[in-house]
């Protein structure tokens, strides 16, 4: 369902050109749990931005469920992100001074769905991402621990039932215990059938996935099963 053909990305900074991606091609199928691993500067973040429709490649094609993404306009990309992709970032995942529930239903804003329905869905996805205790739902984002924040972010990522969940270094700011909690949550979701792609530079994190794509200097080094 994800098909990347010869993706390249060149950044221009004045006269200096940086090739972040030098022709990356791969496929990811529905229900896979993939870790994309690589050191800093390997191009993994750039790849994630393209996969998440946050950026467009300089050349090459990116197909998501048969739709060619690189030609889409701003509003169409927005719609795509909202409906088909769920993000979990390393930091700044939640809106500040906003409750957990309101954060989770953020992607449903302006959708015309009733408040009751939004609430129902929010509670459902929160339970699915390991936040069962309802006492947290009215808490503000700054009153939560790192691990709790990430799980709320996962819930938000799920609310529109996306095709893929993209996590960019989701455990980067967490201690070992919380990292485990978060990665276990991903595993549980994957068992339910969600497609999960995690970007990381740590082997321990990649170990939780079923497939590992190693990337270095803008190219795929290795693509193997765990």
């Amino acid at each position, binding site marked *: 369902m994800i098909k990347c053909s010869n993706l390249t990305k060149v950044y221009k900074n004045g006269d200096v050109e940086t090739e972040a991606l030098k022709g990356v091609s791969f496929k990811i199928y529905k229900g896979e749990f993939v870790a994309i691993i690589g050191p800093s500067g390997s191009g993994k973040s750039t790849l994630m931005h393209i996969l998440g429709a946050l950026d467009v490649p300089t050349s090459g094609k990116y197909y998501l469920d048969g739709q060619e993404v690189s030609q889409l306009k701003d509003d169409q990309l927005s719609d795509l992100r909202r409906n088909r992709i769920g993000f979990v970032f390393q930091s700044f995942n939640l809106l500040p001074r906003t409750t957990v529930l309101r954060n989770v239903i*953020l992607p449903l804003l302006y959708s015309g769905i009733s408040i009751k329905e939004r609430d129902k869905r929010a509670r459902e996805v929160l339970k699915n991402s390991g936040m069962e205790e309802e006492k947290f739902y009215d808490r503000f984002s700054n009153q939560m621990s790192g691990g709790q924040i990430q799980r709320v972010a996962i819930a938000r990522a799920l609310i529109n039932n996306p095709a893929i969940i993209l996590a960019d270094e989701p455990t980067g700011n967490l201690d070992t215990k919380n990292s485990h909690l978060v990665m276990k949550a991903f595993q549980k979701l994957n068992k339910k059938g969600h497609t999960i792609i995690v970007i990381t530079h740590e082997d321990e994190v990649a170990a939780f996935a079923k497939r590992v794509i190693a990337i270095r200097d803008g190219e795929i080094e290795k693509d193997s099963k765990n």
Partner: protein
Amino acid sequence: MIIDLFKETIWSLSGNKARSGLTILGIVIGIASVITMVAIGQGAQNSIEKNIQSIGSNLIIVSPGAGRGGQVSAGRGSAQTLTLEDSNAIKSEIPNITGVEPENSRRYQITAKGNNTNTQVIGTVPDYLIVRNVKIDSGSFITDQQVRSSAKVAVLGSTARDDLFGENTNPIGQSIRIKNTDFQVIGITQVKGGSGFNNLDDSVYVPLASSQHYLSGDNFLSTIGVAAADQNSMSAVQQQINDLLLSRHKIEDPTQADFSLINQTDIISTVTSVTNTFTILLSSIAGISLLVGGIGIMNMMLTTVTERTREIGLRKAVGIRKIYINLQFLSEAVVLTFSGGGVGILLGWIASLGLSSFLQLSTQVTLSSVLLAFSVSAGVGIVFGFYPARRAANLSPIEALRYE
């Protein structure tokens, strides 16, 4: 969708009550001070103009003695150059006049029934009522017959009546004594109010001839008041009076005139220019306050947007369309400026009312000040709240998320 927008706006604004509050405060202070200051200026202008209007309509005052340019008050010249014949000549020879009142006025000690007061006694004719815009409250005013016969009658102003006989009494038929002569009270005038420009309520009126015979002992007049028929004829009438008196007094050189003329319009414009300066001063102060308030608003808005760039990035990343992000920030700016504006206008209005009731300061809230203050504040708020947000919304989500 509107409901969502509204809710997001309220949620955002109340999420940072301190910042929203400070922004609104800047707007409120700016607007309220402009409205109040201008109201004070306008009120001052109104009350002074009303004061001047009330001394008569289309009034020209002839005073004896050489005129000094720019005399504002009806000065009583010490020279004695105006006579009753001058006054009669004016009345008979000059067209477009509704009344002429020659006056012989001086201050005297007056006694009545054990009370006494020191006040001005105005010896005059029936036309006084027309020319000086005075009305009778009870009894009657001086008649031509009484002037001809030097009748010993008097009309009291309301304050003089209060001082001599007690407040709100009716002393008609009773006597007052001025300079060893008894005058019978035949009328009381209506309250005119005012101060400065001769408080006519604290006056006693007697027939002109009676004043000349029994009180001052001479035939000269303190002033002659002339009421022109209308605004347009005033300058012509003034010129004609000037020419007439110059020829009657056999004076060739106008600069050597032994009398002076002031008209009400001159007085009004002199005073108006003073109040205008006053209003400009107040408005400038208010303008500065508005400017500072505006800078405060601008500062608040820009800081807010800068701090929320990452939030904008996150919203974009989860797929909220650019237009909704723009609308949200626009809506926040509008709600802030309009609610601040509303409170500011209300506060300015209340402050103006408070000043007029507690400090006896006349105020009038003007629509133009309200509109000006509101549009400046709203303009600043919306421009600086919306356009920076629009710029942030145009960033790519990654750039916005990375923003420090």
